[in-house]
């Protein structure tokens, strides 16, 4: 049963990584919308981030899983259940994006104006300025915040066990139920979560050191 638990740990890691990828794309879009000149883009984006940050994570997960089925039923009159995995990814990546967009916005604003003006004065086209001057610095400013949000995301994955994704938490639950040894299995699951967290913390620390080596 230990191998099941370890495999489920990989499942959790995969789920978190997929959510991270989707979440990053969403975060960039949300950040862009929030900084846009058009109110029609700005307002819905800020509303979405505010709501997502104010709701309990479990509510977001349930809302998307049960809500999507319900919505489809209202639209088509058919009961189709979406895959719990992808509902979980949607919820987790939305939650990640809401916080990451905030971080990105702060990081973009932290790049000093003079840099952009200097690039302009040197005759660098806007796209080049953004890609070669602004983006690398934004990334550097944003990394600590994003690292934190990755750790939050890792821990939030446990919630998708409640909608039936066979992740680490789910496996621990079924092992606990079948062996009558809840303490053992939940403690083991906790240790695996801890191991994933510690390894990613170390990795992120190295990445951070690399990114800021010129400072």
């Amino acid at each position, binding site marked *: 049963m230990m191998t099941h638990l370890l495999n489920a740990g990989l499942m959790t890691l995969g789920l978190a990584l997929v959510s991270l990828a989707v979440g990053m794309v969403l975060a960039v879009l949300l950040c862009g919308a929030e900084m846009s000149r058009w109110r029609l883009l700005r307002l819905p984006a800020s509303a979405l981030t505010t*709501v997502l940050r*104010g*709701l*309990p*994570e*479990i*509510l977001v997960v*349930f*809302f998307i899983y*049960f*809500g999507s*089925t*319900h*919505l489809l039923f209202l639209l088509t009159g058919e009961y189709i259940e979406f895959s719990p995995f992808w509902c979980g990814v949607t919820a987790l990546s939305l939650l990640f994006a809401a916080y990451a967009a905030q971080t990105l916005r702060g990081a973009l604003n932290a790049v000093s104006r003079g840099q952009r003006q200097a690039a302009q004065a040197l005759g660098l086209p806007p796209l080049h300025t953004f890609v070669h001057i602004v983006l690398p610095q934004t990334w550097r400013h944003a990394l600590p915040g994003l690292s934190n949000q990755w750790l939050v995301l890792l*821990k*939030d*994955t*446990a*919630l998708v*066990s*409640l909608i039936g994704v066979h992740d680490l*938490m789910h496996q*621990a*639950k079924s092992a*606990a139920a079948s062996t*009558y*040894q*809840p*303490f*053992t299995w*939940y*403690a083991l*699951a*906790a240790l695996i*979560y*801890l191991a994933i*967290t*510690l390894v990613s913390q170390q990795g992120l620390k190295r990445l951070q050191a690399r990114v800021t080596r010129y400072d």
Partner: protein
Amino acid sequence: MTKWIEYAYTLLDGLQVTLLITGSGLLLGLLIALVLTWILDKRVPVLHWLAEGYLLLITGTPLLVQIFLIYYGPAQFDWIKQSWAWQYLREPLFCAILALGMNAGAYTCRLFKGALDAVPKGETLACRALGMSEWQTLSVKLRHAMRRVIPAYSNEVVLVLKGSSLASTISIMDIMGLAQRINGQTYDTLTVFGVAGAIYLLMNSLLTWLFRLLERRALAFQQQG
């Protein structure tokens, strides 16, 4: 439209439980955080290793696992079941508060420690040079640290309030628990969870607003100079 009001009315029955868990969790968390911060700041031998371990363990694992570990875990051991602790540990409400408090304690300790470390060393030295006692020095340090702690602590309060919804996973009928029950009965998912979400959002905005008020009051002494 009437359905909205009806759901809101039923869900508000869980408000008391949600507030009880959040409030007690925060109180317990504050207590744990103060003790841990003291241990870490004074570098109490041996104990500060234990405190570091505690922080690592709690902040490195999901709250859901902690809740399940505390609620379902003890049943594995007969000696716990026969002890006095069992009458508390078999209560889901007690376990939820314990888990949330232990969790909040770890995060709040990190916050306090960070704020204390951010107080410039010169300030402590100046206090000592002026012949202030240990307690007076501490009070100066604390006032400095407060500037950082109050805004960050409001985040923690929101986190605990949101986290209290996980109590629904061990059969507690808080707002989230009631929302799940009504959803199971009516399948009116979007409306039920929508109303529950609105209640949580409202509470969170209220809390944030209250903290901003407190911030302005508590930090008024800084605006005089």
